[in-house]
């Protein structure tokens, strides 16, 4: 399997070349074009594993209940994948450290990657500006993620602060808390940052440069009333 991210960071698409016999699992609706030689199958779960519980759990994260499996039977083929919003995509090889991914950022993964849902806890669900559930990807193999904005990695050694709503994914060796920005509440509120996420430990966190909500608030008032 050969994954290339093209046209990033503005409107990235992932080109997945599948050799004969290879396959990839994607979020429903992510395909934009493909060789007609590929075989498509829609299921509620990851191939050969998981259960209907998996589908239900995925549903609560706001992801599609259904997953599409693209398989190259007999002959190689390509499939282009893209998210719905403008933004970047990330190709990451999981090497044993599970990756925690924002719901909505998952695009695709190799069959050798396991997928599960993790509840963030009530505090983080309310205040982190992120989804209440995270997707945990573990095992070995490539995964493809997406975000609104450019994606940049930060290697954390000790502590690092990421504004709420800017987390794409992080390695599970990191833990994070929601804290107020700056030293005081006045700074936190007046400075417009409010609450931020503080990461602790060793590992990599991938951030999105922009926040879709801020863009929505800038664009919204100019649009037709609903």
């Amino acid at each position: 399997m050969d994954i290339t991210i093209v046209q990033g960071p503005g409107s990235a698409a992932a080109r997945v070349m599948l050799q004969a016999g290879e396959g990839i699992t994607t979020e429903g609706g992510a395909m934009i074009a493909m060789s007609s030689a590929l075989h498509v199958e829609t299921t509620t779960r990851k191939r050969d594993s998981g259960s209907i519980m998996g589908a239900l759990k995925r549903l609560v994260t706001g992801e599609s209940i259904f997953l599409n499996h693209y398989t190259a039977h007999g002959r190689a083929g390509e499939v282009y994948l893209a998210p719905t919003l403008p933004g970047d995509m990330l190709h990451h090889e999981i090497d044993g450290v599970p990756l925690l991914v924002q719901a909505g950022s998952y695009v695709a993964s190799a069959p050798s990657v396991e997928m599960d849902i993790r509840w963030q806890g009530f505090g983080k669900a309310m205040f982190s500006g992120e989804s209440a559930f995270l997707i945990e990807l573990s095992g070995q193999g490539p995964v493809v993620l997406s975000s609104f904005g450019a994606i940049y990695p930060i290697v954390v050694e000790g502590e690092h602060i990421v504004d709420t709503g800017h987390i794409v994914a992080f390695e599970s060796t990191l833990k994070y808390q929601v804290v107020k920005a700056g030293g005081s509440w006045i700074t936190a509120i007046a400075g417009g940052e409010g609450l931020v996420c503080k990461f602790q430990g060793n590992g990599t966190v991938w951030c999105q440069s922009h926040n879709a909500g801020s863009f929505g608030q800038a664009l919204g008032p100019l649009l037709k009333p609903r």
Partner: protein
Amino acid sequence: MQIHIHRNGANEGPYSPEQVRQMLAAGHLQPQDLAFHAGLASWTTLAALMGELAAATPPQAAAADNRDMEYQVECRPDFAFLTVHIPGGQTLKVEASAMATMSTNLRMKTKVRGGLSRFLTGESLFLNEFTAEGGPGEIGIAPGSPGDLEHVYLDGNTIFLQSSGFVASGMGVQVDSKWQGFKGFFSGESLFLIRCSGKGDLWFNTFGAMIPVDVTGDYVVDTGHIVAFTEGLEYEIGKLGGLKSLFFSGEGLVCRFRGEGRVWIQTRQLPSFAWWTYPFRPTKN
């Protein structure tokens, strides 16, 4: 994109994607050779870059020099901006609202584009014609949708564009809309196309970046991601995959292209973006 090559212990280049593609085809370069371009974190193999090369290769490279008017495209691929140099006395047709800058000797005239089909395609009913008076002039064009821009030179051939893809054209290009699909009583989805034929420059744009795909045989594209395709390609609208995929794959309708030709696809599509803006829109009253 400028690509640096590392092989036999030495650096070569930089080359354009088109050059690299040709050198690969000729066997001067091997897929396992190392390559690098700005934006990459480290050297990678040419094999890994193949997809990017395909996407970055300017379409219709052979005919790319063919043009009536000088032009340049900047800020590709996300916010492509077109600057056209209009020779004295000549006129350029431009999509309404797209003018961003212009010389003061350009005269603008608004033309109504006829036909009910304009309503159907959801396109603006008006076109602006810019004529350079008393000497050459320059116009900067910024389409409304964030995305890429493409130029083709029509010489008697025909191109089909998605309904909102038209940006600008020379006066020798005929633009008419073709209705496709049927809605309502028979229920179904529709695909509106504009047919561009004649002779002259034509510029069209996308939502998101553009990926040209040269179809030889069979290719499947989500209908929302079709930007344009060349005449002569056979196509058929249908669903993806089997019975379950029909309802649940989330892929909507797809178009199967057959034959020889080029399809331009866009990496984003409007409906899901429009849906996303919903919570941010003002409420009535």
